[in-house]
């Protein structure tokens, strides 16, 4: 069982005459489209916009923390900046990042369908996202919100004078956008698979998104009702979360984290889904332990709902319930470990090349391993006492969210860029960008682990001078990281016009999406395909290519 796969000669590749991009022209044809691929592009543009805003806010945070006193901005301004950074990055970038763009584009292609099950709901979900984004932006323009992205009561309900309700409304709408995306994916995976596409022939990308969708539909409504209660409590001064009126502030924490912990799996599972595809393709090898990787995604989604209280270990919850939640958190870490080992073993006896997506995937493996294992620090009850609410937490979740998810997102965008646009990104500069991002990331966030163990609290506009050196490192790293993110924003649009023509299958990948033209037809497939082989079957691909060479030549 061995296969040689060679990359096709791209010199002869031509752009197809007809594709979803040139099917229709004009703004209206985009804004009223039902095509999942066009909606994915709309999402790509809008989340990039919010990523830039969130990134600029992150830069402001790091600049303020260059020096110990709050000299660049007043504490109030700083509080608004980090709150908006959190809200925008989490609800408007990370949650929709991979699912709404790459997932939206690929899931129908991968299961062999012409579109998602409900194209109009898909479009509606984009409009809800945009409406949510407008609410959040208007909250920012009107003067900002300083609750932190966690909206902790009673601070958010009775002690702040900022635009809490506007921001909460934005998150509410973005939440429904996420619910509809999840609903569409679940129905599509269940009901729209092409003939022969059994559950265990689905690419792992689809398994990852299926698990994500479960969390989206079960978790997000709880966040929605919680935000409604916060808004009502604020406007009508009801006391559900207010202890002086008989309410319980911890109830808010429970309801909020019931969504917001699973939400971190909404953010990471699609990233893992991308990594499975990228590593398999550039090793020319089936993913090691396919079923283990598939089921570990579902296991993460299920266990992810049973660990929320680990955000509250020091908040006066029962010590015995803390035991249970600590144990469950240890269990949810295991499927992630399984995935990491399976990806590593996929490389074994592969035939590996190092294109940009693969470099990002390697970055993901390293950074996510650190991010995941430092999660064990926080799941360990006694250690959590010292580390929680410090920069250790900040470093941990940035390793998972930025080091993990953003690396995976960039890997995915580069990997499927030829499929989405029909053109290649420039390889040399994008490899440089990947390396810069990796270095910048380490320099930015590794010092924060040390700061956390030193005890530097998070969300501090001013800090004691002892912490300055590490903060300077972090800020310096952030400027490197900024360059790393700026580069793709420049060369990817450039490649739309000047990039090399990609051809159908530039990576010689096995997925159904690579067997059709790039960019695809509006209908995706001229004829609905029949799946007659396993996922990641490079034998099949080699035979097919050989056959094509013979018939053409």
């Amino acid at each position, binding site marked *: 069982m061995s296969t040689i796969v060679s990359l096709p000669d791209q010199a002869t590749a031509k752009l197809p005459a007809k594709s979803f991009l040139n099917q229709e022209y004009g703004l209206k044809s985009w804004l009223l489209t039902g095509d999942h691929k066009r909606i994915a592009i709309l999402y790509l543009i809008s989340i990039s916009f919010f990523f830039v805003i969130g990134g600029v806010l992150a830069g402001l945070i790091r600049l303020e923390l260059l020096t110990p006193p709050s000299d660049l901005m007043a504490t109030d301004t700083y509080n608004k900046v980090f709150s908006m950074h959190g809200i925008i990055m989490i609800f408007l970038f990370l949650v929709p990042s991979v699912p709404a763009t790459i997932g939206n584009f690929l899931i129908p292609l991968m299961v062999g369908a012409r579109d998602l099950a409900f194209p109009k709901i898909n479009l509606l979900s984009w409009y809800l996202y945009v409406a949510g984004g407008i609410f959040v932006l208007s909250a920012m323009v009107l003067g900002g919100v300083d609750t932190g992205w966690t909206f902790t009561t009673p601070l958010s309900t009775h002690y702040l004078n900022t635009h809490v309700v506007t921001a909460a409304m934005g998150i509410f709408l973005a939440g429904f956008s996420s619910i509809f995306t999840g609903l569409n994916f679940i129905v599509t995976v269940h009901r729209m698979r092409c003939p022969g596409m059994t559950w265990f022939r689905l690419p792992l990308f689809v398994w990852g998104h299926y698990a994500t969708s479960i969390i989206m539909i079960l978790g997000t409504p709880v966040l929605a009702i919680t935000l409604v209660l916060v808004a009502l409590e604020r406007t009508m001064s009801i006391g559900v979360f207010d202890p002086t009126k008989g309410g319980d*502030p911890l109830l808010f924490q429970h309801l909020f984290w019931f969504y917001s912990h699973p939400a971190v799996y909404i953010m990471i599972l699609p990233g893992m889904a991308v990594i499975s595809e990228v590593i398999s393709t550039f090793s020319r090898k089936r993913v090691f332990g396919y079923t283990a990787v598939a089921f570990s995604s579902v296991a993460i989604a299920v266990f992810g709902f049973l660990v929320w209280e680990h955000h509250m270990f020091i908040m006066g919850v029962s*010590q015995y319930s803390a035991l249970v939640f600590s144990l469950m958190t240890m269990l949810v870490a295991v499927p992630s470990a399984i995935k990491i080992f399976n990806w590593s073993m996929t490389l074994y006896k592969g035939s590996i090349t190092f294109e940009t997506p693969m470099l990002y995937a390697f970055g993901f493996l390293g950074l996510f391993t650190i991010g995941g294992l430092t999660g064990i620090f926080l799941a360990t009850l006694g250690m959590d006492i010292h580390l929680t609410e410090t920069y250790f937490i900040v470093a941990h979740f940035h390793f998972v969210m930025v080091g993990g998810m953003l690396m995976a997102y960039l890997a995915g965008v580069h990997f499927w860029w030829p499929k989405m646009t029909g053109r290649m990104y420039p390889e040399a500069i994008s490899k440089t960008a990947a390396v810069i991002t990796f270095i910048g990331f380490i320099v930015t966030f590794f010092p924060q682990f040390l700061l956390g163990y030193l005890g530097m*609290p998070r969300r501090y506009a001013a800090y004691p001078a002892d912490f300055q050196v590490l903060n300077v490192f972090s800020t310096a790293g952030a400027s490197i990281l900024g360059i790393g993110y700026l580069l793709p924003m420049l060369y990817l649009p450039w490649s739309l016009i000047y990039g090399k023509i990609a051809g159908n299958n530039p990576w010689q990948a096995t997925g159904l999406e690579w067997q059709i033209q790039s960019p695809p037809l509006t209908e995706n497939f001229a004829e609905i395909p029949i799946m007659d082989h396993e996922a990641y079957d490079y034998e099949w691909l080699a035979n097919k290519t050989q056959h094509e060479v013979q018939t053409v030549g």
Partner: protein
Amino acid sequence: MSHISPVLWEFLVHWLKNFAIFPPEASTIAPYADALYFALVGMTVTGLLLVMTMVLVFAIRYRQERHPEAVQIEGSTLLEATWTLIPLGIFLVFFVWGALLYFRVFNAPPNSMNIYVVGKQWMWKVEHQGGQHEINALHIPEGVPIQVTLISQDVFHSFSIPAFRVKREAIPGRYTTVYFQATTPGKYHLFCTQYCGTNHSQMIGWVYVMTPADYRAWAAENTSGASLAQNGERLFASMGCNACHSGNASARGPNLANVYNTRIRLTDGSTVVANEAYIRETILNPSTQVPAGYAPIMPTYQGQISEDGLIDLVEYIKTLDSNYRIQQTLNKSELSSAQASTVGVGKTPPPQGAAKP
């Protein structure tokens, strides 16, 4: 070195001096926490090295130039079992280890010295048993087990002393506790780590660990003249609590002598331990947990007594070991009714400045 400009040199020296990467160990908990930390760091480094070695070795050994033919491998149940069970085993070890430490930090030994801390936007108000009040400072003797009882009077705060490796949320409306025993005299950071509004980053202070002798001297020098229980006694009298809780058989309220830490039967048949939280709750929401045999006639004191006042009352009720003490209060209430008005609602403790390390 003479080539370096003096400004830059000074800058570098300043930086290196401040280049701390490890907090001081100043409590009995700290070495245990650090041991756990290093074990976890060890696990992380091992795991990372394992993954990075696999990735790098395979990436180099099986790069396309050297290994043009990929060998398709389905998977291996044995390997899957290995890397499921071994991480699980390691994680479970940390679970048990961490749980032991957690129970230690949050369950103080019975002989601990109790200090109350009230969090408010944006300061820490510390109340010692002997009536010493401090703001954003905490003086403690070394070698004495200390339990800090925390409560917030507005939003969530979090009481963090990194050098002791302890932290606990101060929650509006309920008491939480944290325990530590300082080992090394010195001055350590005290932070609020839960985001609490505009001046969150200014809600910081110092913990002064002193030798027992120094501490006694400090306590004697800084006492406000009345212990918490004495303040509570005055408040008890001035709020008229003793009108009903007079300790007589015919009294309308239960006898409070020796009530602390006993099991009380409630009207609905359940029982509850009369701890600090219960005493506080019955002052604010008296009809939620009414002792059996009494009518829910006590008025609420919600909004009438500050958190500091509640602490005083709790401490006073804790000291009531006989009817005789209540009778004393009864007598005293007539004498000191003039004085009492000074310690009523919204009393703020006098700030204690110029603390010595």
